[in-house]
């Protein structure tokens, strides 16, 4: 009996690993443990075994049965695995590139703008917006720019034809002309005209100058301006803000200094220099970065604020210039060409 069992097991052990298809395995299984299977036949001989030998033979049969089942299970698992892998195809090569596009990238001007806005939000500024087509009043008159100021010259500022009609850009006086804003200060005027102080806004946006395009000039570029109006706002507060934002953006080693200057809409006015020699391509001890000052009382009067009650400061700078400084970009035109090799560098 034992020999017979061994023989059947040996046969199964030899045959089953070679079975590769599920129907073949089913057939093989039937040959061993089916109603007419070899192993079934051996089990049927149990009835002929003398009573005293039965426990020992039964044990032998059970052991053999267990081992046969293992062989069958292994064969089944192997076939199932082979079927699955046939379904999945060959294993992947993780070193192959993805055929999908991307990842997407934010434009460096967006990155710098959003970073500045994030820094400014933390100190109470909210981000304001306004039209790019403006009227002379919001761009110049309300900002204390005299009627004959060179900035208003057609040589320097883009105008729309005198009969142009803009459905959603308001004018103060029907006779004034539309133009492309030369600074985002017009947003300050519109914001102040809309509500009462205190006001703390940052207005980033596109502005236009009638300039030749070269490595450092562009007919349109982006500015970011801050305006704070409250009681008892001082020059010292203004300096503190600039120290804060540039240290936050460019690192603690960054210092700022004010040089007295002249702007029609602030008094006193300053140009702001940065000392940031730790940045790439910065080879001067001080770099001019923007202009600022205390809001001129004339501007407050234009928007109906009492200059005796309210004081404020304003600050503005070019975003391209800041991005060029931050990233070490040496030509402003790169920002407007959108070469993907440029765009992929900053995100």
């Amino acid at each position, binding site marked *: 009996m034992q020999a017979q069992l061994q023989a059947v097991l040996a046969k199964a052990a030899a045959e089953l690993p070679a079975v590769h298809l599920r129907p073949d395995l089913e057939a093989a299984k039937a040959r061993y443990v089916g109603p007419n299977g070899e192993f079934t036949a051996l089990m049927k001989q149990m009835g002929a075994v003398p009573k005293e030998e039965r426990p020992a033979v039964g044990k032998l049969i059970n052991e053999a049965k267990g081992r046969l089942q293992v062989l069958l299970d292994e064969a089944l698992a192997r076939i199932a695995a082979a079927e699955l892998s046939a379904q999945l195809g060959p294993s992947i090569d993780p070193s192959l590139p993805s055929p999908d596009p991307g990842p997407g990238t934010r434009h460096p001007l967006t990155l710098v703008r959003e970073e500045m806005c994030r820094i400014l939000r933390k100190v109470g500024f909210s981000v304001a917006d306004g039209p790019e087509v403006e009227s002379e009043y919001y761009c110049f008159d309300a900002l204390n720019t005299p009627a004959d100021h060179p900035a208003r010259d057609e040589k320097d500022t883009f105008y729309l034809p005198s009969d142009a009609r803009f459905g959603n850009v308001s004018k103060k006086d029907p006779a004034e002309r539309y133009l492309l804003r030369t600074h985002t200060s017009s947003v300050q005027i519109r914001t102040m005209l809309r509500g009462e102080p205190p006001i703390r806004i940052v207005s980033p946006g596109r502005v236009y100058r009638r300039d030749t395009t070269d490595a450092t000039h562009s007919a349109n570029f982006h500015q970011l301006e801050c305006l704070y109006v409250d009681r008892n706002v001082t020059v010292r507060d203004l300096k503190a803000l600039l*120290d804060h934002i540039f240290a936050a953006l460019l690192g603690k080693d960054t210092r700022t200094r004010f040089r007295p200057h*002249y702007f029609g809409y602030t008094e006193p006015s300053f140009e702001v220099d940065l000392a940031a020699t730790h940045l790439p391509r910065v080879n001067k001890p001080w770099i001019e970065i923007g202009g600022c000052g205390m809001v001129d009382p004339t501007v407050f009067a234009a928007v109906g604020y009492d200059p005796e009650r309210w004081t404020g400061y304003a600050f503005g700078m070019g975003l391209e210039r800041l991005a060029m400084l931050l990233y070490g970009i040496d030509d402003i035109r790169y920002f407007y*060409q*959108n070469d993907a090799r440029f765009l*992929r560098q900053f995100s």
Partner: protein
Amino acid sequence: MKVSLNWLRDYVPLTASPEEIARAITFLGFEVEGIHSTGAPRLDHVVVGEILTRARHPNADKLSVCTVDVGPAGGVKTIVCGAANCDAGHRVLVALPGAVLPGNFAIKASKIRGQASEGMMCSPDELGLPGDHAGLLLLPDRPALGLPIQEALPGGDTILDLEITPNRPDCQCHLGIARELAAWFRLPLTYPQERFRGDVSAAPQRPDLLAGVEVRSPEDCPYYSAHVVAGIKVGPSPAWLQDRLRAVGLRPINNVVDVTNYVMLETGQPLHAFDARRLEGRRIIVRPAAEGERLVTLDGKERALDARTLVIADAARAVVVAGVMGGQDSGVVADTTDLVLECAVFRRQTVRAASRRLGLSTDSSYRYERGVDPHAAPEAAWRALDLILETAGGAVAGPAFQVGGDVPWSREIVVTHDYITERLGFDVPAAEMRAAFEALELRVTREEETVQPARGPAWTVAIPSWRDDLDRPIDLVEEVLRLHGTERIPPATVVAPGLAAEDDPVVRFNRQATDYLVGHDFHECVNYTLRPARELAAWASAAELPRLALANPFVDDQTHLRSSLIGGLLDSLRLNQARGVPVARLAETGRVFLEREGQVLECVAAAFVIAESSGERSWLRREAADFFTARHHAVALAGLAGLRVGELLPAAAPGWQPGHAALATDLRRGCWIGAGLVDLALTRSLGIEGRVQAGFVALLPELLPARAGVRRFQDFSLFPAALRDLALIVPEATPAGEVSTRVGHAARQAAGASFNFEGASVFDVYRGPGLPDGHKSLAFSLVFRGKDRTLTDEEVNTAFQRLQEDALAGTSWQVRR
């Protein structure tokens, strides 16, 4: 504007180094754009020595061996010299061992032809100075032995190139800058002293030289004076005057012209001298030019004038473009003996307009455009007369002809210490403030104590006529701060009360749109707003185009406001393709300008393009983006703007490929959305390879919600859904949306109140065998669900049957079985 430090020292005894002075000017508020020194270079170990003896070199005919005493710099040295003029007794400049001369020429002790030499005596050339290089530079003034070169040689100067801000016309001259520096360094300011300050009322006028002055447009010329000087002799200016002019970049002409230029550079007042005999009719008339009147200006160019241009004329013709440039044949020439000196004030706008029209900017027009002090003009005339008499001789013939200019000047500002301190945010002592005013010649006429709770004094400050920019107390805050020093503003922390309001909805939309697009693998681009007409013509109708044009474009390819962001994105796509840079997805957010019913609307917009192929071959192919990809993104962007987009209709608009793009224009509400294939002829004409899908949303900024609406939770059923499929045969032209709407409506009706119809989605569109010609089959999967129970087949079937009847009623549609 160029200023010479030597010249400034005429008025203020500056001892600081040029660098310190440049720094002072910077912090006074004038940008120093350039700084360069002339004269003796700073060279270490180059000192004055005296040649004691000269002997012939034993081994060389042309060399001498000299003993040279350099005094405290090292006593007597033996030096071999090749110059012919190294005679005993001369004082010369000696480069001692250790000196490095221009050209990186290092001086060492050495042997020359066997003879020790402890340095070198220098020619001008070797010191980098102009002059004859054949011999040693001799110092006839016999400066002290051992004196460093820069102290031994005269003529050194430093020239600063300054940018003067438009509020400070008083600083467009040396005296103005000197006044500022005197205030900064707290040094005395000395005004020029005139030798001749004639009372000429007794001198007879010379009607034979000048008979009269007439000003016909006094608003353009508020002041005009003409002095006559008779008996002058024109010739070269003295060296000091020529040197001054050359130092700041002017070419000396003759003594008279040089004086007028000198006084302009000194006082800021432009002056002009006529040859009296060349003034027709011996008259000066200030008048608008006649239309088409011609004048050959000093630069030799013939100028055509118009009636807006002010001229100085004689009885016959224009002789000067007022405030800009003189004419060629009325000025002082070599044989001029009698001159007329014009000293005038012209309206700034008049001069600016003339200068612009003629494209002619001069030292004179620059100063007039920014404003000259009418109250200082007579002083400048006297200063010029004084220098003319000094350099060209002659005599002033009687009092000047003068028109206008008799408006008195008086201005006072009252400001308190408290006011200034409150604006500054830090304390500056009252005494320092008052000292600052007075240093700037802002005379404090009165000082009073203020009333509690204010602290410190109140000052009444008299403003001089040249400081027209000072008009209000705040203007004096700046003066205090300038002299205190902006570098001394104390540091502080930002005080931020919780004021942050919500960001503007436009800002939030742009941010969300950018996030969405970047998250979907787009590269964010920034393109110019101003586009060429030919690009816009592809996207705007012929009626729209002129509405978007600028009045004064600058270059041909930036003439119009963009009506679409897609034009710029296609441009960027083309650029990348042309450069061989693989890229498929580009996007931008920004303003566009849409013309509607004769009005232009400034809109917020987001747009994207997807190139069918990035240009990069790949080992694994993806299905190309199609209309539905583009529409998906466009609708999603509109969703970010809070817009729920209904159906897009097939596009019949420029820029889009007919039959393969769709638009939704919601005119009343002011939003536009579109997606699909960019016109193939357009992409081909742009030189773009492959097809491009694009999409955009544009809307009026005022449509963006100020804040997101509140959403309410809607409960949903946890019971299983019952699904039914329905295929309908409909005419080819019937849009799926129409069928879907009708089926949905019927399904809701059929389900009634007893259970829910959750939606119908298209899962198959079939065209081909088995269908009538010109028809298609649309298959919908319908979802029904009970609120509170599992639906029975029977009730769903009943509803399904009913909805088919309802949906088909009145149509030619059929159920496909």
